[in-house]
């Protein structure tokens, strides 16, 4: 009687091992990429009820971030401007623009505009805007070049390890206090970000928490 298993089965185990290895590698790589904030969050760019353009307001009109996000320096939360803030200008400028219909509607009815949230940390993470902007961390570090965004999207992963990267080495992000809201700032030619950062870190005694309690309560 001949062999029960044909000859080609002798190579089967090797092929199975190679295929399994390839599949596992692929799965691990796929999961670790597609399940990370880098994929699920970065680039999130929802359609907003009002087609607000930061390019026009910041880049072209030169408005400061704090004109609208007025409490960023004092509160944990960086507030979204009230309808009143919008209407302060838009009663005169572009008062009839169809793009601003939702704002005018809100002003008339008192119902607030529902902006779609882009940056969202989990409920158990307590981020404080005030302490970052007052201690030399620019909006740019976490939100990217918002001044160049016609529609705002998420620029950074804002995952825990991303936070820790900066908390462990804040010198890579510290800026002169005058440049916090300058989205286009670059370190002067004769120095580097790191040099500046180290100087501020030492001067201001910047020592961001890296234990759980800094962010989780």
């Amino acid at each position, binding site marked *: 009687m001949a062999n029960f298993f044909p000859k080609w089965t002798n190579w089967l185990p090797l092929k199975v091992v190679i295929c399994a290895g390839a599949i596992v590698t692929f799965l691990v790589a796929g999961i670790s990429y597609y399940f990370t904030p880098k994929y699920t969050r970065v680039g999130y760019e929802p359609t907003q009820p009002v087609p607000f353009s930061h390019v026009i307001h910041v880049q072209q009109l030169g408005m400061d971030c704090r004109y609208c996000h007025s409490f960023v320096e004092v509160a944990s939360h960086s507030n979204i401007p009230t309808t009143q803030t919008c209407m302060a200008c838009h009663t005169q400028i572009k008062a009839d623009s169809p793009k601003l219909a939702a704002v005018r509607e809100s002003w008339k009815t008192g119902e607030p505009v529902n902006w779609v949230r882009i940056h969202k940390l989990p409920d158990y993470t307590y981020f404080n805007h005030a302490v970052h902007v007052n201690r030399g961390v620019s909006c740019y570090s976490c939100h990217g070049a918002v001044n160049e965004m016609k529609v705002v999207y998420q620029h950074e992963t804002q995952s825990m*390890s991303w936070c820790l990267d900066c908390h462990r080495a804040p010198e890579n992000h510290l800026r002169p206090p005058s440049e916090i809201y300058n989205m286009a700032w670059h370190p002067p030619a004769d120095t580097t970000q790191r040099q500046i950062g180290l100087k501020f870190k030492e001067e201001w005694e910047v020592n961001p928490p890296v234990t759980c309690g800094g962010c989780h309560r």
Partner: protein
Amino acid sequence: MSNASASAEPAEQLTAEEKQLVRAPLVLNKRTMGWISNYISSIVEAKTPIWWYVAMAITAPLTVMCLAMLVYLIATGVGVWGNNHPVGWAWDITNFVFWIGIGHAGTLISAILFLTRQKWRTSINRAAEAMTLFAVVCAGIYPALHVGRVWMAWFLAPVPNANGIWQNFRSPLLWDVFAVSTYFTVSVLFWYTGLIPDLATLRDRCKTKIRKFIYGVLALGWRGGNRQWRHYEMAYLILAGLSTPLVLSVHSVVSFDFATSVVPGWHTTIFPPYFVAGAIFGGFAMVLTIMIPACAVYKPLHDLVTIDHVDKMCKIILLTGSIVGYAYLMELFIAWYGSNPYEQAAFWYRAFGPYWWAYWSMMFCNVIAPQFFWFKCLRTHLVWVWIIVQFPNAGMWFERFVIIATTLARDFMPSAWGMFHPTWVDILTFVGTFGLFGTLFLLFIRFLPMICMFEVKAVLPEADPHHGEAHH
């Protein structure tokens, strides 16, 4: 010259003096290699007996019940068990340690007895190893599912993650994760390695295509050439060598869960040896609990699992039971001698506190009951043996309950003392794990050779290449 006649001769040629030196045969009734293959394979090959279906009809629903309880647990919360503050661990960890303890005899019989060249192990090691695996499966349920957020249990695995956080390698619980998973993996490898030649036997005997395919694949194309046996034996030796410290380490690590804590009654250096002795004790009791009925069903197995085997196992139970008893007394002595009031109180409450009944059940089952094995007549009477070994089985469960629940119920702060009461979910889950264990074991008996054929053949007198020749 046929094999049968060759095997019968030598003993008869010996002088009376030499006859006394000859050990009792490991296989009775002068069974031949062919008979061994035929009989053991026939258990797998024959039509499924009625009793198997009957047994399965009991264990399978219990398994389903166990799974249902676990689904309810995960869907609802750990609160469905009776655990509370202060008794954060109760039946969950009790059952875990109980099952993992049972899971020690198999590897221990295989590995330690192999290394010490105890040839009588050959007829029981396969079933004992299978028992190990199934017990570890039952055990593994508990630590995996007793956590509050099962869906987050992957936090235990050291994988790179977006949170950038790692495990605490100082935690005995993490040691447990590594120890139990290593133990399970190594036991599977050890068991499967031992199965390969026997699977080849089944492969070469079976008639149907399905069986040919399944056993053919499982046997991996084993040919029995000496060039294979050479590596095989080395691998088996190494596995035995690895398993021996592993088996000792696993229960030591389990005992570290308690011994490294600060809780009076847990914080004890005696725990590792005492847990290991207890595991061997309970494990052998479980082996006998299973093998005696199995041999009663398959009567000719008595030629392989002889009364001598039973006798030896009873002696080990007697020994380890006495070690455990010594440990109990030593705990009490050290608590008194150490004059730490918290320790003293902890042990006082074990014996005379509200859980006194658990303590004295443990004492009777683990220390008193095995003493019957001093009598040879009880060691060699299968019914009595089976009855007596039920006490260690129960006693070892009580021991873990006493150590875990009653200690936590009364520790440092009297204000925080509280009692534990099991709920119906606790009870049904535990009963269900017996169903799972039984189901797996029944499947094992039905589809795999329950006795290691090639090793039994190797201990037959005619397996000696110098059999029948003059002594060197």
